[in-house]
């Protein structure tokens, strides 16, 4: 291996060489710069290879010919190698990226760049305190120098502010060094660590100064205004270095210092880190400038890593895996994002919509924000999981809460930004970029995915989790990224075949309960995908997202341990988010969806972590073995998490928008299929943990109430909707409420009913969404009152809707009745009376919105402009007809699906099941015979119909205005169609129940956050002196807290 000193030497040598060149030889100078950076990269890469592949031991390099403390030594270990590689590679790529500006400014700029990278590698490598100081100062000086690269005139001021702060910091640093030296007699970091500096007289204060000086370089709150100014005004190429490399180097320096300070300084690191993480993320919320936003995010991320370092007492060896995962994710993502920011002309966040002209950049962006948000399959995800797991194991719950809160806020603004990119108008100035710039971004992108793979492998190796990037469904989904150039129908066929094939290959793996979900997810998904044949063109981005969602869904039911379950959960969340975001006006709704989902996911994460008690691999079934006092809390967290997905009342506000604004074939997927994921989670939870009590309150009883209220309020809200798909969406809330209620009953029949609802809801809600979507596609509106009288023009859609509403309402003979029948039998055996009353009220209300749905769309008066519209496209109708057939079949023979589940449920709830004798189904209380019902009703209906046809055979067919109109005649169909505010009396009587309390509450929360952030961030008033004052206050406060502690 090459001596690590050559990394420094290469940079210094090249920098000197540049000084010798004539100023016109810029091309040569640039080549030399690149060469030097490549050499540095190559050396570091060599070391990484050595450590990873050959398992080499860390090596010390001595400089002065003697060993420390008499000389400075560099150490090259795995972390150093990775970090130097990171620093030099970022330097190299940024140099490529900044070719134009570097060549314009000449070799001096290049030399400064080389010095900057060299200083960073020095910070990483050195084991000498004073040497560290020197490299720090070099980094500061070169940073200030590189600020001059920026075209932004304000960069000057930012550089000056930075210098002010760093002047103060170097004073602290030097004080710290000299006192530390005085106390220990050495400048070697390891020497100081062995000398236990903190125990010596004045040692603590000496270390305090050292620590604070280095930590302050990480831009802790509130002493970080200067950092933001740099991010905002620096050249994006340099901002990438500053964010990715500088932060990483400084973090590593902090890590080294903590070696000296020992365990007692760890809480301080954690405290500063977490506060910074939260504050920076919070302040980022109202931010509109992209680079400043990136700055906030960088600061937040480094804060998070600092906090993780502060937990090394419990994280132990895992700290490398966790902090490393977070750090590398952060570095790659931030470098990439900063580079992209250089390609975008405007500085407002919505200006990034320009990226849409290059899908690869959008993909890069989304990769980067996923990495930052800690989503699978990137290292941050694994790191997040292990971190929370270990913290929970040690009972550091508050810290978990703060970190997850910060992550949620961060995901909030990042995904909001992504929403802008996908949905906002493309600005006039398009993306301008050179191949060099693209390749830099591309390298970041590739390394992001590669690291995802590496971390997956590591996770497999150390913790026994599966590598997500090796899971077949995920691979299948990601393949669509490569296939995106194919026409949509080809991809659609592949997707359908893939889903069906996967089911065919694995169907023997599932128990009857999972079988129902597997069929709905895989076969059900394939049926809905039939509707996607209607889309023309290539439909970029649709299939990867869809398949990712399905991958998550299928992995969810196949998961055996909590990690797999959680990973699948997040996968399906992201996949569905992308899907929902595709809708025309879905930007805000997709955002609230992802925020609620991630919030829920974090609760699940916390719940699982709490349950595992630090065990790396925790089987889901083992949830059953949890005991008081832990169990109810785990239950609570998981239940709330899952109920976020089923949109239980209070957590439901994301659903209506998300489901209604989604594309026509997406709505049935997210409603008919995705909601079941939440139910599946609840089933798993209740199956393993059963009834839990918290402070004497039975949690399933609370769920019962939530289910009942969801059913009632969901239905109530549905009846006041004017938008067909919104109506269906609210109806889903109600339906999920029923299912939740059934599950929470915790008896055999309750579960059977919930599963019946799972099946039914999939069929009829998919059908209704497709039907409503088809109508909306033809009419160009989803407002029901604008439609009317479409029955003759769209008869098949009408039939689907008719069958659908009969089934939803539970009227015999269709399958909805089976659900209601089991429901009544289930509650009769339950002792909970009050919530029953609520759910009773919900029942008839369903009729109201269902009738409204079919009446205002298909009946009543046809409008002028729709006189010539055609039936919905064939590919929309086909799945609907399949669903009609399914509904009828399921109505006649519910046993096909339910009988096996019924038997299976005996394992969980022995007894109390149904008897299946012939076609009759009976319980302990009642009986029904679906076949007989169907035949009887058909015979009665048929006879009467034939009779009426006979007696009215000569009826004159009239047209829509041939109605008695109090001796007048209708004027226009618009004024004759009674549809708008259809249930006005109901609103008068019960409208107070559907005041948007939940919406107001969540609006209040977000508004409070925004306002608080907007007011607080004015702390950063832009004045360098204020920043200096912040720094001093930070030092003083930190000191007081340290001493107080």
């Amino acid at each position, binding site marked *: 291996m090459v001596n690590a000193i050559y990394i420094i030497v290469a940079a210094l040598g090249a920098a000197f060489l540049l000084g010798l060149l004539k100023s016109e030889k810029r091309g040569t100078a640039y080549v030399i710069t690149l060469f030097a950076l490549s050499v540095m990269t190559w050396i570091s890469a060599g070391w990484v290879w050595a450590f990873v592949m050959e398992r080499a031991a860390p090596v010390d390099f001595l400089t002065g010919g003697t060993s420390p403390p008499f000389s400075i030594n560099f150490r090259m270990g795995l972390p150093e190698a990775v970090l130097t590689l990171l620093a030099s590679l970022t330097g190299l790529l940024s140099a490529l990226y900044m070719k134009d500006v570097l060549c314009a400014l000449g070799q001096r700029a290049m030399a400064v760049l080389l010095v900057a990278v060299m200083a960073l590698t020095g910070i990483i490598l050195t084991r000498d305190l004073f040497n560290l100081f020197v490299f720090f100062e070099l980094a500061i000086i070169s940073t200030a120098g590189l600020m001059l690269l920026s075209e932004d005139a304000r960069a000057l001021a930012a550089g000056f502010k930075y210098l002010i702060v760093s002047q103060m910091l170097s004073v602290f640093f030097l004080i710290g060094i000299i006192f530390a030296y005085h106390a220990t007699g050495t400048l070697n970091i390891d020497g100081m660590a062995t000398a236990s500096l903190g125990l010596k007289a004045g040692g603590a204060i000496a270390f305090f100064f050292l620590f604070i000086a280095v930590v302050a370089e990480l831009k802790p709150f509130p002493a970080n205004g200067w950092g933001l100014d740099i991010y905002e005004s620096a050249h994006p190429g340099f901002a990438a270095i500053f964010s990715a490399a500088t932060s990483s180097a400084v973090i590593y320096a902090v890590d080294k210092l903590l070696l000296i300070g020992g365990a007692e300084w760890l809480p301080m690191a954690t405290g500063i880190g977490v506060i910074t993480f939260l504050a920076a993320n919070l302040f980022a919320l109202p931010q509109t400038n992209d680079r400043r936003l990136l700055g906030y995010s960088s600061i937040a991320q480094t804060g998070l890593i600092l906090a993780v370092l502060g937990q090394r007492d419990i994280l132990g060896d895992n700290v490398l895996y966790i902090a490393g995962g977070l750090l590398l994710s952060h570095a790659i993502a931030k470098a990439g994002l900063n580079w992209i920011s250089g390609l975008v002309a405007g500085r407002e966040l919505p200006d990034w919509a320009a990226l849409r002209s290059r899908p690869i950049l959008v993909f890069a962006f989304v990769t980067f924000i996923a990495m930052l948000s800690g989503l699978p399959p990137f290292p941050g995800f694994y790191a997040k999981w292990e971190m929370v797991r270990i913290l929970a194991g040690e009972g550091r719950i508050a810290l978990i809460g703060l970190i997850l809160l910060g992550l949620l806020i961060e995901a909030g603004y990042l995904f909001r930004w992504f929403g802008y990119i996908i949905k906002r108008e493309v600005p006039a100035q398009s993306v301008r970029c050179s191949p060099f710039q693209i390749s830099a971004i591309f390298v970041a992108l590739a390394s992001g995915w590669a690291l995802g793979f590496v971390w997956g492998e590591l996770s497999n190796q150390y913790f026994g989790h599966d590598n997500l990037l090796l899971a077949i469904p995920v691979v299948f989904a990601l393949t669509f990224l490569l296939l995106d150039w194919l026409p949509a129908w080809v991809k659609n066929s592949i997707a359908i075949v893939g889903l069906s094939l996967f089911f065919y290959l694995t169907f023997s793996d599932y128990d009857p309960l999972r079988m129902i979900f597997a069929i709905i997810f895989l076969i059900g998904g394939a049926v809905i995908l039939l509707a996607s044949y209607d889309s023309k063109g290539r439909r970029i981005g649709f299939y990867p997202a869809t398949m990712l969602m399905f991958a998550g869904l299928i992995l969810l039911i196949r998961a055996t341990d909590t990690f797999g379950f959680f990973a699948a959960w997040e996968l399906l969340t992201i996949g569905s988010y992308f899907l929902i975001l595709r809708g025309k006006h879905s930007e805000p709704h997709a955002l609230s969806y992802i925020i609620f989902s991630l919030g829920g996911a974090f609760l699940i994460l916390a719940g699982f972590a709490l349950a595992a008690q630090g065990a790396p691999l925790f089987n889901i079934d083992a949830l059953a073995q949890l005991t008081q006092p832990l169990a109810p809390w785990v239950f609570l967290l998981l239940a709330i998490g899952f109920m976020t997905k089923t949109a239980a009342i209070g957590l439901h506000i994301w659903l209506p928008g998300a489901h209604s604004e989604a594309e026509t074939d997406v709505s049935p997927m997210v409603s008919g299929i995705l909601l079941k994921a939440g139910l599946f989670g609840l089933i798993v939870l209740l199956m393993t943990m059963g009834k839990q009590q918290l402070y004497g309150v039975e949690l399933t009883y609370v769920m019962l109430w939530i289910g009942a209220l969801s059913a009632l309020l969901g239905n109530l809200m549905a009846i006041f909707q004017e938008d067909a798909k919104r109506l269906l969406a609210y109806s889903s809330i109600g339906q999920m409420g029923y299912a939740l209620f059934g599950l929470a009953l915790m008896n055999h029949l309750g579960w059977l009913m919930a599963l019946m609802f799972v099946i039914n809801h999939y069929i009829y809600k998919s059908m209704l969404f497709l039907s409503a979507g088809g109508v909306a596609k*033809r*009419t*160009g*509106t989803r407002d029901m009152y604008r439609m009317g009288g479409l029955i003759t023009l769209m008869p098949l859609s009408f039939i689907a809707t008719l069958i659908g509403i009969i089934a939803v309402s539970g009227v015999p003979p269709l399958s909805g009745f089976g659900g209601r029948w089991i429901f009544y039998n289930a509650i009769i055996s339950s002792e909970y009376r009050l919530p029953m009353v609520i759910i009773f009220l919900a029942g008839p209300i369903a009729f109201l919105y269902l009738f409204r749905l079919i009446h205002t769309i298909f009946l009543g008066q046809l409008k*002028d*402009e*729709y*006189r*010539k*519209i055609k039936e919905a496209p064939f590919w929309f109708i086909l799945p609907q007809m399949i669903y009609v057939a399914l509904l009828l079949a399921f109505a006649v023979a519910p046993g096909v699906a339910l009988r096996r589940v019924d038997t299976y449920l005996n394992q969980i709830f022995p007894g109390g099941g149904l008897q299946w004798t012939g076609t009759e189904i009976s319980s302990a209380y009642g009986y029904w015979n679906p076949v007989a019902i169907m035949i009887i009703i058909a015979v009665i209906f048929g006879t009467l119909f034939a009779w009426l046809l006979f007696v009215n055979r000569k009826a*004159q*067919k*009239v*047209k*829509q*205005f*041939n109605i*008695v109109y109090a*001796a*007048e*005649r*209708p*004027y*226009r*169909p618009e004024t004759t169609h009674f549809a708008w505010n259809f249930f006005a009396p109901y609103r008068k009587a019960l409208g107070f129940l559907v005041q948007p309390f939940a919406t107001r509450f969540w609006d209040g929360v977000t508004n409070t956050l925004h306002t608080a952030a907007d007011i607080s961030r004015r702390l950063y008033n832009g004045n360098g002196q204020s920043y200096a004052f912040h720094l001093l206050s930070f030092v003083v406060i930190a000191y007081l807290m340290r001493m107080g502690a």
Partner: protein
Amino acid sequence: MKDELKIRVVKGPDGVEFEVEPLKDYYCEAAPTVMPAAYIKVVEDLFNWARSESIWILGFGTGCGAIEMRPLMTPRFDAYRFGVQWRPTPRQANLFVISGYLSTKTLKRAIRSYEQMQNPKYVIGLGSCTINGGMYWDSYNTIKRLDDYLPVDLYIAGCMPRPEALLAGFQDMKKLIRAGKAEGANLYAENFEWYKANQKRVIHDWDMPDYNW
């Protein structure tokens, strides 16, 4: 013609423009036809008996005579005991009582309501005004002979006839129906052209299809 009945050009959601002709597209254009009696006489007799014993009057008061109909619902006269009831919608009514003078404005509504009733249907002219205009014989805006516009089965003369007279009229009407002589609807269909010509002569702002189904 009223604006809303003129041919208009509308644009469909797919951007294609086309014409909408309200009178054709929104109204049934078929002409009324003569409806034969039931093929079997016994059946027709039964029906005629039922029709006579179940007279549903359209609740539409056209003139001052309307005031004489209300007492029929009261305990004093109680027409219900004779099988006479009032229906608010012409679809379900069999008998249209033109109660007194009929202004041309109301005539249009009366025609519409009459045409919306189902065959067989009956018209009773109540009061002198329906016979010859009565005291409004020279009015500029009432019609004089109801029979010119709608096929009248029975007149109840007087100005105004009292409710007792109405009851007597209903009894006579029943006899007509039972005898199968109340075929006004078929008469109307047979002489449709003539009735329409008469109607259009007095109704100048004709803004409806020729036959209101």
